[in-house]
């Protein structure tokens, strides 16, 4: 059973993930498989083939195509008709199959993404424009876009569809990675006939599998004898478990295992915390078993929100010192030491190389001279909610454990599993060939995985645990809500004199949220007071979310900087050039200054109903890498395959490896097969902290170079004369031989570790497998918004992102990721906000209708400028982009709203009601 005393983040007391309800809807929609449920006949054609079967009353069309027909392209995303991942065509019309009763397909012609073979022009366009990242939403988009395309071509020929028509057609789809800009480009180009015939490029190594629905995600896995696992979660935000009786559940026919996930007399610290798990022959029996579990709670009033945590007499979320030590981390870096007082932990100070008292003196001086910006900002809780929910299929047989899991860390996960269950490395395999988005939420050994493993261990059969959207939104992870007191001082000489950043975070039961770190990364000068306090509440634990701490820090700091520039009468770029010494960003300002819409931006707030404004904010992120990264290349009868125990979350690591190897070999990237997502391969990094590309690319190049060397030697050994290396192979006296042909004669395997950067690192040693490069990566974000002062809507109309990327390992994919980062930043700035019920701690934003994510119509025109000159000291050049592209966006949006209206938003998201209140004040 669970040990509460193991490593912190595995700690049983709080228990990584957990949430919700004793039921809800599913990955198999509720009711789908009820044994006793009456069936009704269904006869229809699916992709041209006649199907006759019986379906239950509540069976969905999605369930029918996925389970009965085995067509896994259509995905369950939200289960409420919001995200569109389940879209299929019925008699040629796209429909929401998660809500469409299967019985309503009677007599219909059903078309799914699998039908389109050979590729439809829309699929080619998606590939060529790289209109996808993780690929989970892609089949839904493709099926919808095909219907739009075909109708458009019928009615309008190859004329260009307006953006508004594309937006309207795809309004029912959500792409959490934010690939909308490329999706719009792809649909438009296909409608123009540009992909009717001829060649097209495929920049993404696994793009073909994703646009055809063939990519198998964890949720699609179906093993022989596989059981359905479910997690029973506490409905109470604060409670003690008095009694937990699993026997009635165990006695139910079709139930194979019931395990306890909370220790006896365990403390419940958030609604959704895992209590127990069941494995049953199907979903409905699992639900029956969940209902049969008897739990008696002593219920307390939960502490919800920062104010409640700080209130006098607030009930302590953690009582004992040992429990406090086991509180899960909200971030991914090392935690700064600090002390606890009630539900407050801190302040923790990011004062390495900083002079806090000098910052205090600067604030004091500002009373008499210079300028002071002194503002309080509030940011919301943002949940990751990747479209593929947390999912694990575990199979423990004959002493071997195979874990298929949607994770950002196949290699580390295998290590954690070995440690937790005391297994040896050769007993454990972790597989994640395709991961439907993560954004920081799928780093650790979380509860769905722990439950699946415990259940399979208990019954010896494979067990699948997939959380539903309600659970995902509750316990899947979130960026903490924050209150930020920010003071920035500019001296009479117009120099930056000091920054004071006092932050309070609500990261639920987790600790260690930081913004001080992010503030420390920008601008010259050491006069900084940087303090972070965790306000511990009965909310689910936060997890690192793309640029942890960055977006709120830059929203506040750059809001103050903009305020100062305005009051000092300085142009934003001039002001930034005065204060910002970052080499790459200084180059970016010069590029931005020539962007037409920047040049033509309104200089004063508008007065009409619609007001346009342009704002600027900067971003910084460390250059992280994992020095221990290895890449393996096998060349032989099956061609050339490169592999590493890494994962591709849609971030493109497959393509990074393929491009690196192909470049060294002088062959097209599609000649290189790439295997990722298997813990048995050469050790690779987790995908977190923007380190994968910087780690893998140089290792792959080095492995490829070694392969070349060995193949050349082999060629000589084969008796070829005058062997010299040439693009794509070797030249010899009698002609040319490709690497592939040579490898067939002389099969070769090489494994190489990433070479060390010539200039060394910021710290001499890697900490936790991570080295920190000497230079900081930097970005500049400019946003244009249009504010409707009557209805309060803020539209992000244009974005410009200048980003110091170093060499681009996969240029088209780098652009996709940067655009996605901008889009997620817009979504955070304007729409997303999690709400918990204050009385119970239960989630209110429990679906994607109430938790609102940017859609295609919200996507600005995005221009990305890569500066590839930086990071010459980094081996092979590339640095990670994932965090950098999103950190500055909310700040730029906030500043743009100010420039448009003269009202400075200090609270996120910038919802219509806040705009109306602000603009009318």
């Amino acid at each position, binding site marked *: 059973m669970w040990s509460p005393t193991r490593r912190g983040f595995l700690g049983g007391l709080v228990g990584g993930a957990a949430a919700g309800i004793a*039921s809800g809807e599913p990955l198999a929609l509720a009711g789908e498989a009820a044994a006793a449920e009456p069936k009704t006949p269904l006869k229809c054609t699916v992709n041209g083939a006649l199907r006759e079967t019986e379906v239950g009353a*509540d069976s969905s069309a999605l369930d029918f195509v996925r389970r009965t027909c085995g067509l896994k392209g259509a995905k369950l995303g939200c*289960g409420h008709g919001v995200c569109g991942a389940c879209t299929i065509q019925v008699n040629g019309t796209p429909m*929401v199959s998660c809500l*469409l009763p299967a019985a309503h397909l009677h007599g219909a012609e059903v078309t799914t993404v699998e039908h389109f073979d050979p590729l439809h022009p829309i699929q080619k366009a998606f590939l060529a424009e790289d209109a996808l990242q993780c690929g989970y939403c892609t089949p839904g988009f493709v099926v919808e876009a095909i219907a739009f395309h075909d109708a458009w071509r019928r009615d309008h020929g190859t004329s260009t569809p307006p953006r508004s028509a594309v937006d309207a057609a795809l309004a029912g789809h959500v792409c959490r990675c934010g690939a909308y800009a490329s999706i719009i480009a792809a649909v438009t180009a296909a409608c123009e006939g540009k992909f009717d015939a001829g060649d097209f490029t495929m920049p993404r190594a696994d793009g073909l599998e994703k646009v055809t629905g063939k990519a198998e995600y964890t949720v699609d896995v179906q093993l022989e004898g596989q059981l359905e696992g479910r997690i029973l979660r506490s409905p109470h935000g604060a409670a003690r478990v008095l009694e937990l009786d699993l026997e009635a559940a165990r006695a139910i026919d079709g139930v194979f295992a019931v395990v306890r996930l909370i220790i006896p007399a365990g403390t419940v610290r958030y609604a959704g915390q895992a209590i127990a798990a069941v494995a049953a022959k199907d979903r409905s029996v699992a639900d029956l078993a969940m209902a049969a579990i008897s739990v008696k709670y002593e219920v307390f009033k939960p502490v919800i929100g920062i104010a409640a945590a700080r209130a006098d007499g607030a009930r302590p979320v953690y009582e004992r010192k040992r429990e406090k030590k086991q509180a899960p981390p909200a971030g991914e870096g090392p935690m700064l030491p600090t002390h606890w007082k009630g539900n407050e932990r801190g302040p923790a100070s990011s004062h390495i190389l900083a002079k806090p008292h000098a910052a205090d003196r600067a604030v004091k001086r500002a009373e008499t001279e210079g300028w002071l910006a002194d503002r309080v900002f509030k940011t919301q809780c943002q949940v990751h909610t990747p479209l593929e929910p947390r999912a694990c299929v575990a199979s423990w047989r004959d002493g071997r454990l195979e874990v298929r899991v949607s994770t950002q860390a196949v290699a580390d996960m295998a290590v954690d599993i070995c440690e937790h269950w005391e297994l040896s490395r050769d007993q454990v395999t972790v597989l994640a060939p395709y991961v439907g988005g993560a954004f920081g939420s799928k780093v650790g050994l979380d509860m769905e995985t722990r439950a699946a493993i415990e259940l399979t261990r208990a019954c010896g059969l494979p067990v699948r645990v997939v959380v539903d959207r309600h659970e995902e939104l509750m316990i899947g992870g979130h960026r903490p809500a924050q209150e930020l007191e920010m003071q920035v001082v500019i001296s009479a000489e117009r120099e930056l004199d000091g920054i004071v950043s006092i932050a309070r975070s609500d990261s639920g039961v987790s600790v260690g949220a930081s913004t001080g770190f992010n503030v420390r990364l920008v601008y010259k000068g050491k006069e900084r007071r940087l303090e972070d306090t965790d306000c511990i509440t009965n909310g689910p634990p936060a997890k690192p979310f793309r640029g942890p701490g960055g977006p709120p820090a830059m929203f506040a700091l750059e809001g103050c900087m903009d305020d100062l520039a305005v009051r000092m009468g300085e142009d934003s770029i001039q002001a930034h050039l005065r204060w910002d010494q970052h080499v790459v960003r200084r180059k970016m300002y010069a590029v931005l200054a020539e962007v037409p819409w920047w040049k033509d931006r309104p200089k004063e707030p508008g007065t009409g109903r619609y007001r346009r404004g342009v704002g600027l904010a900067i971003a910084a992120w460390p250059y992280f890498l994992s020095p221990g990264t290895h890449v393996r290349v096998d060349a032989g009868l099956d061609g050339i395959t490169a592999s590493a125990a890494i994962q591709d979350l849609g971030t493109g690591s497959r393509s990074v490896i393929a491009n690196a190897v192909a470049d060294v070999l002088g062959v097209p990237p599609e000649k290189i097969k790439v295997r990722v997502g298997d813990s048995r391969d050469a050790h690779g990094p987790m995908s977190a902290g923007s380190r994968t590309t910087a780690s893998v690319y140089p290792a792959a190049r080095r492995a490829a170079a070694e392969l070349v060397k060995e193949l050349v030697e082999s060629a000589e050994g084969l008796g070829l004369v005058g062997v010299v290396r040439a693009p794509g192979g070797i030249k010899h006296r009698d002609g040319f031989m490709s690497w592939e042909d040579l490898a067939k004669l002389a099969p070769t395997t090489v494994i190489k570790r990433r070479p060390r950067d010539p200039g060394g690192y910021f710290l001499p040693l890697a900490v936790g497998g991570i080295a920190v490069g000497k230079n900081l990566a930097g970005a500049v974000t400019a946003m244009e918004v249009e504010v409707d002062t009557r209805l309060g809507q803020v539209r992000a109309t244009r974005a410009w992102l200048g980003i110091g990327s170093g060499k681009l390992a996969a240029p088209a994919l780098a652009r996709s990721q940067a655009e996605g980062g901008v889009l997620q930043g817009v979504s955070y700035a304007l729409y997303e906000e999690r709400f918990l019920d*204050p009385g119970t701690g239960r989630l209110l934003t429990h679906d994607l209708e109430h938790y609102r994510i940017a859609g295609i119509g919200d996507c600005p025109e995005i221009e990305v400028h890569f500066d590839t000159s930086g990071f010459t000291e980094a081996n092979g050049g590339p640095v990670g982009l994932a965090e950098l592209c999103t950190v500055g966006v909310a700040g730029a949006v906030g500043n743009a709203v100010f420039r448009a209206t003269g009202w400075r938003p200090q609270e996120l998201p910038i919802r219509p009601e806040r705009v109306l209140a602000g603009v009318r004040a």
Partner: protein
Amino acid sequence: MIRFPLTAAEAKGEGELRAGGTDLQDLRHRGIRSGPITDLRDVQGLDAITDDLRIGSLVKIADLGRDLRLPPLIRKAANGLATPQIRAVATLGGNLLQRTRCWYFRSREFDCFKKGGTSCPAREGIANRHALFDRGPCISVHASTLGLAFLAYDAVAHFEGGPDRSIAEVYGDGSDPTRDHAVQAGEVLVGVSIRDAIPGEKGGYLRAIARAEAEWPIVEAGVRLWFEGERIAGARVVAGAVAGVPLRLPAVEQRLLGELANEATFARAAAVSIEGANPVPDSAFKVDFLPAVILSALERAMEA
């Protein structure tokens, strides 16, 4: 249990009616509704729109949006709700009789009046998507966009084997916290007739949302205007997402009568829309939205 009656008459009686299923299946998947289903899939004759504007209850929302025989407000409202994949499945009847989107109602973790409970958890909780006109004890707002559009026509709802009722009667006054409408279990809504469409009338529909598309409204409004010469001869103004039922606003209509259709008239009329508003505190901001949305809907009507 599920049954597939062949006629509306057979559909009467036991079982919760299922038309397109988009709302009912959502509620069933969430575990909020259960029990027998009477599926209208095989019932014939309810999916047509006649020339005298009788609309079958199984007509898809997408079809309402593109039928040029229908007056502008109906088409605009149909096209303005949900998403294309939903509009292709959902029906007129299902839309009119759908349940509220209140996040307490839609969560199986909370009990409430509409689920047989004895209290409204939103009152003690977070109610920032709730009533501007609090008619208690439930403070959820009605979800049907088509409801407000048909209310603007005093449309007549037809029931199998029963007397016709006006849409206003279908919804009642919103004071019964257990219900979203006054149709009894076992009754079958077979269609809705629009009888007082005015040739040449103008119609406008608008919802205030944060995003560009596909969002439940902060506040929504539908308007109809018709003219004698330059003067407004008649007006209907209906608001949604502000009360437990779609709300007709006669005070606004009164201010429009006999006036010229210009910005000043519209602004004066829209301003009185909030007379009598008694919002729950979290939703007090809707006071700013209702006049703005009505003003915009009036302008949209004139654009058409």
